[in-house]
């Protein structure tokens, strides 16, 4: 069989050569490491290359969509770009990098340990103590909290450049909470899928096991066989969220926010709906000063109260160690060689880029003369720097940092703008040279390793300070030689955490409250809009005082005391505006919707984009109405909008969200809220109706209004085909199993939702709630309706001849209903104690001050 001859395509004919080009050099001869790649590319036609890059772009864009947060892709979404020309590190270079990175990592790790203990390096005046002690990442409360084996930095990275003469330099340390490992893994996967031929001619060290190395290194920090590891994040930006979500999934660990953790008896626990799960290792991705508000007074960043005390007692490991950020202090970069020499006794294998201090007058002068060739950087990217300097603005742009340098030169350094090596980049159907930077990761476990590969970024000539920016100008897959592959026996896999841990309490609680708030908003809005219609259509010009008690019942049902207790206001329109639109009035429709949104936004990752979008649109529309000049006269419009849009949200959520345990909490919240608001309305309306109820044949406007307010008028007519009688209304609204607005219906559905939860594990903590709910439904359904509201037409509803029973007085009816309401409120307390706050453990122990 004849093979078609391969025509080598010449893609590099017009390529601009330069001495700093890693692939072609100044003369255009392909350097050894890039032979295979150039050859593979030459075997593709220009059209083919374009198609490959398109394939890559498409896959990358999908990745961006997949990990961008719902509804916000346009603003902050990840614009992932990967170039099809990879970076290849030669065997010699890799040998230097792997030795040099470990050497440096160990030295700077020792520096962190020293700084928090004896400060020998400062005492001996090896480096100026001012720059070390002034570091905003240096936190006195972490003195005396040394991690096991003084391992401050278990996983870290360095930003490296390769200069035209082939020398490698370190630009920055990233030893506190470096990001990028997930990008390395994704880039390799994307390139291998879009362009497998590239890999056919060369052996490359695999990057896929990086997440395994990391999880094994984390596990080794606990003596327990099957330790529980969590990744602690603030989760407030897409880029970080992507990385952390990916890593957590690949390592099989839980990703948590501070609100997921609870300290009890000097141990850290993860709150789940199945109970408390003891945490052994916290892989922190937030600044040390943000982990515990108790330990670092004055830092206003939240965190887990009491966490540091658990660290002090040795009951939990925090990785990287608290205070590790001092190794990233850019002010000590100038002394990197001395630091490496001091702690390792050897010369630095990889030098550090020249770094100047603005605090030193001579250096400042030197920098001032070369300002155009310098890049200014703050000493730390930490929030604590801004806090220390009371810095209100941002510190992202060049102008920001220049301002910082003018006001606080002691917190700024300068580095010359380097012209490191360049590589071909494929764009607009041709290859053009582009400068590259690389981040190399290491794990400083028992056998320190450099992860064979790296994150190569193509950026403009300026190495931007601040967080790693991936969407600048794209990335390159980075190839370490196959000989760099780390050989070791993997540990047996961890028991999948998801099997043990189920849904986090914070997630369940957010959904529960979202369900409650949306239901409350919907109920209030619907009732308000019905009252508005009643007022104009039926009551005509009857004095507002007639209309007020019903309005008050609606207001009372919002749970707002000031609404409930206020006497007939002079200006009912203003009252209505507050009830519907005022975002500052905590029980208003608008405020409820905002509360729901804020609850859902804290768990955006599990909300379907469609549902999130629907809620956002509602918030925006409502905002528009409340800001409009004639807001007061658009209340009906606003209420109808709310009723319709919440129905749309519920429909979308029902259709697009995963119906797991978390989802059940949305339902539990909705049903409990609906039951409660029905009860709040009925405990006011029914006793009053009993007072005024006459056995006349007239249609009672009050009862019809009540049926309408609860959305039950149609149900009533279909069920009874008669005018409204009080006993029938009461039965339909309290005890009906079919009327979705009845208290019984809501409680039965709530009970059903509770029953579907997979909480029957070892702890069985949900059992008692189910029993309580059953009892409540039983109580509700055995209410003596016949005595409370004797039927004028008993023979119609009940053919049996009942003995005449004493009729209950309205006050007694009110008491019955009020105690029912109390029971429903208690149900909320129990749900909170069992699933969210985990107070159930203490429920039987009377505390000293419990009223």
């Amino acid at each position, binding site marked *: 069989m004849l093979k078609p001859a391969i025509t080598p395509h010449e893609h590099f004919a017009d390529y601009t050569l330069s001495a700093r080009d890693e692939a072609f050099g100044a003369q255009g001869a392909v350097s050894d490491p890039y032979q295979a790649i150039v050859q593979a590319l030459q075997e593709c036609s220009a059209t083919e290359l374009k198609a490959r890059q398109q394939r890559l772009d498409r896959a990358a864009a999908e990745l961006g969509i997949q990990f961008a947060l719902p509804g916000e892709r346009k603003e902050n979404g990840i614009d992932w770009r990967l170039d099809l020309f990879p970076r290849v590190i030669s065997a010699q270079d890799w040998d230097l990098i792997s030795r040099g990175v470990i050497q440096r990592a160990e030295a700077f790790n020792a520096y962190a340990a020293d700084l928090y203990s004896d400060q020998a390096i400062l005492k001996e005046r090896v480096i100026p103590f001012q720059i070390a002690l002034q570091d905003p990442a240096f936190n*006195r409360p972490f003195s005396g909290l040394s991690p096991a084996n003084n391992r401050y930095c278990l996983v870290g990275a360095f930003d490296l450049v390769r200069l035209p003469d082939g020398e490698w330099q370190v630009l920055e340390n990233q030893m506190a909470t470096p990001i990028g490992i997930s990008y390395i893994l994704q880039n390799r996967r994307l390139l291998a899928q879009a362009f497998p031929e590239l890999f056919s001619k060369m052996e490359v060290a695999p990057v896929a096991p990086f997440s395994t190395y990391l999880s094994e290194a984390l596990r080794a920090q606990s003596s327990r066989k099957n330790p529980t590891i969590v990744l602690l994040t603030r989760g407030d930006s897409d880029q970080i969220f992507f990385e952390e979500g990916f890593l957590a999934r690949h390592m099989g660990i839980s990703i948590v926010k501070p609100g997921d953790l609870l300290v009890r008896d000097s141990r850290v626990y993860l709150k789940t709906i199945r109970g408390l799960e003891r945490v052994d290792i916290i892989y922190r991705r937030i600044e040390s000063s943000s982990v515990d508000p108790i330990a670092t*007074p004055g830092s206003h960043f939240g965190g887990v109260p009491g966490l540091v005390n658990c660290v002090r007692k040795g009951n939990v490991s925090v990785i990287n160690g608290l205070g590790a950020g001092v190794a990233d202090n850019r002010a000590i970069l100038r002394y990197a060689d001395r630091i490496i020499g001091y702690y390792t006794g050897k010369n630095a294998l990889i030098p550090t880029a020249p770094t100047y201090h603005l605090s030193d007058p001579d250096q400042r002068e030197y920098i001032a003369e070369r300002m155009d060739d310098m890049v200014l950087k703050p000493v730390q990217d930490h929030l604590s720097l801004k806090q220390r300097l009371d810095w209100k603005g941002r510190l992202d742009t060049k102008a920001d940092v220049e301002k910082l340098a003018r006001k606080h030169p002691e917190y700024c350094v300068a580095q010359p703008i380097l012209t490191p090596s360049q590589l071909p980049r494929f764009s607009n159907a041709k290859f053009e040279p582009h400068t590259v930077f690389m981040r190399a990761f290491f794990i400083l476990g028992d056998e320190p390793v450099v992860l064979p590969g790296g994150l190569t970024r193509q950026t403009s000539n300026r190495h931007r300070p601040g967080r790693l920016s991936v969407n600048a100008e794209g990335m390159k897959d980075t190839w370490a030689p196959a000989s760099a592959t780390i050989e070791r026996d993997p540990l047996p896999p961890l028991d999948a955490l998801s099997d043990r841990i189920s849904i986090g309490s914070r997630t369940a609680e957010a959904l529960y409250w979202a369900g409650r708030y949306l239901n409350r908003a919907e109920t209030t809005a619907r009732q308000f809009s019905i009252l508005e219609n009643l007022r104009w259509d039926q009551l005509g010009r009857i004095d507002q005082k007639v209309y007020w008690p019903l309005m008050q019942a609606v207001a009372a049902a919002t749970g707002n005391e000031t609404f409930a207790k206020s006497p007939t206001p002079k200006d009912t329109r203003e009252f209505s505006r507050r009830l519907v639109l005022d975002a500052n009035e905590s029980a208003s429709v608008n405020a409820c919707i905002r509360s729901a949104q804020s609850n859902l936004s804290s768990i955006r990752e599990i909300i379907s984009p469609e549902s999130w979008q629907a809620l956002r649109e509602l918030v925006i529309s409502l905002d528009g109405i409340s800001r409009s000049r004639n807001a007061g006269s658009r209340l009906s419009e606003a209420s109808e909008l709310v009723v319709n849009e919440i129905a749309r949200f519920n429909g979308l959520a029902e259709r697009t969200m995963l119906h797991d345990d978390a989802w059940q909490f949305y339902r539990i919240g909705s049903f409990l809220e609906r039951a409660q608001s029905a009860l709040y309305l009925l405990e006011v309306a029914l006793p009053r109706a009993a007072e005024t109820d006459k056995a006349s044949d007239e249609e009672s406007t009050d009862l019809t209004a009540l049926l309408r307010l609860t959305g039950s008028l149609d149900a009533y007519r279909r069920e009874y085909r008669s005018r409204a009688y009080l006993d029938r209304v009461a039965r339909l609204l309290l005890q009906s199993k079919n009327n979705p607005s009845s208290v019984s219906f809501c409680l039965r559905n709530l009970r059903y939702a509770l029953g579907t939860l997979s909480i029957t594990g070892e702890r069985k903590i949900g059992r008692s709630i189910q029993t309580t709910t059953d009892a409540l439904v039983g109580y509700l359904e055995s209410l003596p309706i016949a005595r409370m509201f004797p039927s004028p037409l008993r023979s119609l509803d009940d053919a049996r001849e009942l003995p005449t029973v004493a009729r209950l007085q309205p006050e007694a009816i009110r008491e019955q209903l009020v105690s029912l309401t109390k029971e429903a409120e208690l149900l909320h307390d129990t749900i909170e104690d069992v699933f969210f706050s985990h107070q159930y453990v203490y429920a039987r122990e009377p505390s000293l*001050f419990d009223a």
Partner: protein
Amino acid sequence: MRFKVLHTTHYRYAAPASESFAELRVWPKDSHAQRVITRDLVIEPDTPVDHYIDYFGNHVEFFSIPFRHSEVKVRAVAEVETFKDEPAQEILETAIGDACQIYNSRLFRLFEYLQPTELVPIEPVIRYFPKKFFRDADELGPALLKLNQWVYDEFVYEPGATNVSTPLETVLKNRKGVCQDFAHLMLAILRSHGLPARYVSGYIEAFDPDKTAPELIGAAASHAWVEVYLPGGFWWGLDPTNNQPAGERHVQVAVGRDYYDVAPMHGTYKGVLDQQLQVMVELTRNPEAIAQ
């Protein structure tokens, strides 16, 4: 002198809190000027207490109340003996210029007591009071007492005028505050002149049982003053609120760079944002005499 100190902190929450966490620094430390004889801490509701010694040598106690509660009561009792302990006269006669040279030779150890902090910002103090408080030739002791008096004279002690979160700038503008503000102000002035100084929290005996007239300020709650590092290593206490050096009637509890390092009780609770706080300090001289 021998004192029994009773320091109670009482939080009442508007609605029960589900969790409270706090670190306490209410355990007087042993020093050249005082000796702690007995010490006891009672927390209601009852809960275990952890103890450690922080970087500055202060006793820190940590507790958490993980179950629902409406109040937290912290009752710290200590018996402390204080001694007359004054710096040597010749040290106080050191010229400021010479003292600063000595400080410079020990700069590494003293560095943290010369730095501005969030609560002790130096810049606004220089802006409000550009004058030089110290000249190189001045004698250290009298110059420090003069500054102490200046703060006392220029600022009005007014309980309630400020709270823990009031920035120093506001104190400078309104010229009034409480002991904590005066301590921060004095630290800022001292540090801006290169004199190392630290914040002290503690108690003061306000009424001298042997005399009728003199009354000192700062009795009802925790008191605060400063200590200046003198050549030779003596930390000299100066109380600008009472215009005098700290003496036998001052009981020291904790030291640090500013209030954040020594806050008597620093914590959080989970519950509604509404609480009432009551702090009471009782200092009794010669407790055995009274008991008998």
